């Protein structure tokens, strides 16, 4: 690698010498500066291609005196690129800067301050400060709009100086400028400053927010994005304020620019937290659907961003797009990332009414070629069975058909999900176990093998040859992965509990326990082996009760996110945070988190799940409800429930917390989606009869472990 690198260097050095000679030659006899212009063009070309031209600093800077805008532009470009790497030479240019700041041509004035703001060297910043103040009040709008952005740069170079100099206040005044572009740029600059962790807090009041809205119509699409985005910094104090604002911006959903559309949706979702009028909320939800669908007709990249956001939006506002599941059907030629995102959304939108339609699609996908996609499709069929009871029969039939194909990865994936289906509907589908057992030999992945072993152990009393099957599986016990070994150990114990009279079962369990405790190094396996052994030795009856204790029926494997976390993520709609489904402050340095701000107008259900900026440090009981919130019937219960759940219920009381959950689910959807029926029939999840609780983490888990949002996790873990 060293050789070509050096060659490149030589090559470059030669060029620089060449350019320098050309520039010097151009100083004499340069009619209309054509020669200089040509050389500078070449130099600039090299800069933009990434070649280092900084050795020419002094030579290039000398051209600054040339009375030709084009040349000036190129020299400034050079300065922007290399100025900050030449702190000891930059002072040479200061007089030129100062002169240009007072040029009568506004383009040159703007160029000068813009260039200076990109050179964060104290000498330059000193010179900039005074001139920037003038330029912010320049009579020419072009200069003002440039100056606004420069303030943000000055702020990042020296925050305290910018604050002391009163620049933030000047920017605030510019938000009321008569020119829409100036307003938009002032907003952009303030947002940039406000997003810094060390920056001033940027909030909008109603008057300013309305002024900004007035400028919206005349702004360019990019200006609209800045202005709309800044509306998230406005906290409505009254329901009516939020509602009026939503009505004013809803028309922007018809903009041709996809970024404008998504930003508008973000603002609407935000404002809906502060709205009371259910009809308007419904109307907003209805209006949001079509533009989202339109985004799906764009290129795959925009589709991807849109899909990731739709996934968040429909979890919080199920009314959006709930009738549009067909839009998300995958095409054979869709890129894989689009397909996977669509699959997830299809699952979310599935409910009793459309389950068979979705199932038919999933079945179609399961015969495709892409292994990753096929696996996800098969898994989705199982999740669908767990989620929509009405479709469970059909889903099982499809899974059996798929097992019939004997394609190994399809079979394995199917068995993994069927295990969960058994737990969701105990006593309903065990009849298919023999079919599953026929495919034992094709299982070569730990997860599917463990699932199958679990099934054999759990239903050993129904499988006539369970001992034979287990015996076969145990041949390779010592070579299996830990996951499978653990499953085998438990299954052998279960078999023994079921058939304690059988000699073969006795022999098997003895063999496994011996292996687990003597021949295996894994401490978990050894410990579990010893535990079983002790239990069986001391009191086999009680051991049986413990090992075969009735398990709570499984909830859907829904990874429906916690409401509060959703609210917070939705503030980042259309940003990197929503693509990765993480709050940006957790993965982007210097990003400030956003959180819903409490106000009298905040919807009580949003308040109940309000997440502060540092949720981790909050003990679960101190979620206070400050401010004189409007008294509504549903305002109190959710909170009471959450504290109860975290502390009170003893482990074997899943029924109670389940009931609570249902209540709240119904109440929540009632409130948000404006459903008149108390049972919340229109909530796609409500017809599951609380089959899965409101807030669930990623894993399938028993109903008793009421996982109400991230902050309760530790407490719950301790209890169980």
């Amino acid at each position: 690698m060293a050789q070509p690198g050096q060659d490149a260097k030589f090559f470059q050095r030669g060029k620089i010498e060449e350019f320098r000679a050309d520039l010097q030659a151009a100083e004499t006899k340069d009619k209309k500066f054509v020669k200089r212009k040509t050389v500078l063009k070449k130099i600039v070309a090299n800069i933009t291609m990434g070649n280092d031209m900084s050795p020419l600093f002094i030579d290039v800077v000398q051209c600054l005196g040339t009375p030709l805008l084009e040349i000036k532009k190129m020299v400034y470009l050079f300065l922007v690129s290399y100025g900050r790497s030449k702190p000891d030479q930059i002072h040479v240019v200061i007089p030129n800067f100062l002169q240009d700041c007072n040029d009568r041509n506004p383009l040159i004035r703007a160029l000068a301050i813009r260039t200076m703001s990109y050179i964060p060297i104290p000498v330059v910043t000193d010179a900039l400060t005074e001139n920037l103040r003038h330029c912010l009040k320049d009579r020419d709008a072009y200069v003002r709009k440039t100056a606004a952005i420069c303030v943000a740069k000055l702020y990042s170079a020296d925050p305290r100086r910018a604050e002391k100099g009163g620049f933030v206040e000047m920017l605030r005044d510019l938000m009321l400028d008569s020119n829409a572009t100036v307003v938009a740029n002032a907003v952009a600059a303030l947002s940039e400053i406000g997003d810094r962790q060390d920056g001033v807090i940027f909030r909008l009041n109603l008057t300013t927010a309305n002024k900004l809205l007035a400028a919206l119509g005349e702004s360019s699409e990019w200006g609209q994005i800045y202005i709309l985005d800044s509306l998230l910094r406005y906290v409505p104090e009254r329901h009516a304020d939020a509602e009026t604002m939503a009505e004013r911006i809803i028309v922007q959903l018809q903009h041709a620019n996809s970024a404008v559309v998504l930003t508008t949706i973000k603002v609407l979702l935000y404002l809906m937290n502060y709205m009371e009028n259910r009809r308007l909320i419904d109307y907003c939800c209805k209006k949001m659907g079509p533009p989202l669908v339109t985004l799906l007709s764009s290129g795959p990249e925009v589709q991807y961003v849109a899909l990731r956001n739709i996934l968040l939006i429909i979890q919080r506002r199920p009314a959006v797009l709930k009738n549009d599941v067909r839009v998300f059907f995958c095409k054979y030629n869709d890129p894989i990332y689009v397909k996977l995102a669509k699959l997830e959304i299809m699952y979310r939108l599935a409910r009793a009414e459309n389950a068979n339609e979705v199932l038919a699609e999933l079945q179609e996908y399961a015969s495709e070629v892409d292994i990753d996609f096929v696996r996800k499709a098969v898994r989705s069929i199982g999740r669908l069975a767990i989620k929509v009871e009405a479709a469970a029969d059909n889903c099982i039939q499809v899974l059996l058909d798929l097992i019939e194909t004997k394609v190994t990865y399809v079979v394995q994936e199917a068995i993994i999900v069927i295990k969960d289906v058994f737990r969701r509907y105990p006593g309903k589908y065990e009849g298919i176990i023999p079919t599953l057992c026929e495919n034992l030999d094709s299982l070569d992945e730990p997860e599917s093998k463990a699932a199958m072993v679990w099934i054999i152990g759990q239903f050993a009393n129904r499988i006539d040859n369970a001992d034979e099957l287990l015996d076969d599986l145990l041949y390779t016990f010592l070579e299996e992965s830990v996951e499978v070994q653990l499953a085998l150990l438990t299954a052998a114990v279960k078999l023994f509990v079921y058939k304690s009279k059988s000699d073969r079962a006795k022999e098997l369990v003895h063999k496994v326990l011996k292996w687990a405790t003597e021949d295996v190094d894994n401490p978990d396996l050894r410990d579990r082996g010893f535990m079983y052994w002790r239990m069986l030795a001391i009191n086999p009856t009680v051991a049986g009760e413990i090992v075969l204790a009735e398990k709570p029926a499984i909830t859907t494997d829904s990874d429906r996110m916690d409401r509060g976390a959703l609210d917070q993520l939705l503030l980042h709609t259309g940003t990197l945070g929503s693509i990765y489904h993480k709050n940006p402050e957790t993965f982007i340095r210097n990003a400030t988190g956003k959180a819903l701000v409490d106000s009298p107008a905040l919807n009580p259900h949003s308040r109940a799940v309000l997440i502060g900026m540092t949720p981790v440090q909050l003990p679960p009981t101190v979620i206070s409800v400050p401010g004189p919130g409007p008294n509504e019937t549903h305002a109190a219960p959710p909170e009471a429930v959450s504290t109860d759940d975290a502390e009170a219920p003893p482990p074997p009381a899943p029924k109670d917390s389940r009931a609570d959950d249902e209540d709240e689910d119904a109440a929540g959807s009632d409130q948000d989606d404006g459903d008149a029926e108390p049972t919340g029939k229109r909530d796609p999840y409500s017809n599951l009869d609380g089959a899965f609780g409101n807030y669930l983490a990623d894993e399938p888990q028993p109903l008793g472990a009421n996982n109400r949002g991230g902050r309760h996790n530790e407490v719950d873990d301790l209890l169980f």
Partner: protein
Amino acid sequence: MAIDGLILLDNTGRPIIQSGFRSTASTYPLIHIDAFNNALSKALRPGDVDPVIYIPAYNIADSPSACCHVQCADMRFLCPVSGNVDPLVGFAFLQTFIDILREYFGNLSAATLKENFDVVYQLLEETLDSGGHPLTTSPNALRDVVLPPSLLNKLLNVAGANINSTINSGSGLGSAGGPFSSPIPWRKAGLKYTSNEIYFDFVEELKAIVNKHGVPLSSNVLGKIETSARLSGTPDLLLTFTSPQILSDCAFHPCVRLQRWTRDKTFSFVPPDGKFILAEYRYSPNNSASSVARLAAPSAPAASLGKDNVPIPFVVKITFDIQDSSASFDITLTSRLTTRPLENVNVELNLGEGALGIKCIAARGTGGLGRGGVGALDMGLGGNAGASWAFDSKKRVLKWEIASVPPSSSWNLRGSFSTPPVAPRPSHALQVRFEIQSHTFSTLKVEQLQITGEAYKPYKGVRGRSTGYVEWRW
């Protein structure tokens, strides 16, 4: 909300042109180029790279960032973003910039852009400020400051007259003809044409999925109104339609007054100069009926959705006979149209891994004969004109092309292939593309185009064109 810059890569993954990246470390663009090339080399298919690549921080002082990218001709456009920025801003800007480049250079390629390096660079400077804030992106305003590389421009350059310098000298600023002087951002001031004309092209695209029983699962028609305006002065136009209610989910060019559309379903606008897209819409056949139905019975929407479907203008019948290591198939495509032909019909079928020895006969009806050849790209010509087939052995895709399918005619493709030693796994979906000239699915009609603010009567023209992209499963 600012992006970090723009990088153009050629098809070998090397940067051709990039914007300044002045507020980032000099290694920053390199990291992005590297990360992108890595991701590309790992992807099974070039289209499968995640469009937003997560780029971890290079060293502790940096913050992680993301790289948005799109493919355009033989190039890749990268747009690095850092901080919690909307990737859609990146994509929207990329699209805008590509549109601008198209406007300037016509068909794009790495070679064209390399040749016109200076113009591209000027465009970058004008459209993206060095802090990553998009600036002027309206082609009308841009043409004032960056001259397109026309023959005239080249001639003038040779003759020594430098237009750029006079334009950029700033003396014109503030006076009538100068840049940025127009009160309407998307329209130039003081335009004059000897013949005033405006053309509207209604271009509609049908996108549908048909299941194995021949029933459309979803079908959507998305329309665009491509407009070309050459009008003097500042004309204010009012465009009305005979049945505006079939236009739903419209997205408009900023020039259209949204309030007027909401109020009386008309397009009222001062057009930009030249070519632009006035509006995009979705055609919903019984818009009014279904929305009433939805309001009345919100719990039973599935049924009403079915009616929204637009009929597919053809039928495909497929039979496949799959053996242990070979398969034969018979595909018949019949037009359902009665007056117009389907043109440039292009059918694609992925035959799956290992497909070899393709033999096909493409014919009209069921009787004709056509022969296929064997080679790296197998080719065959239809017996009675117009139908041909080819096999792309790299992508394993069988293509069947029919130049024109007359009304109600039937076309057939029969063939076989083998896939030793494995069983054939052809895809269960045909992709059919087609065009219909002078036809729109929506049969949208312009009622009137009124012009106010100018005295002349422009020449007006309206045309329709339809394309379709149907996935037909079997």
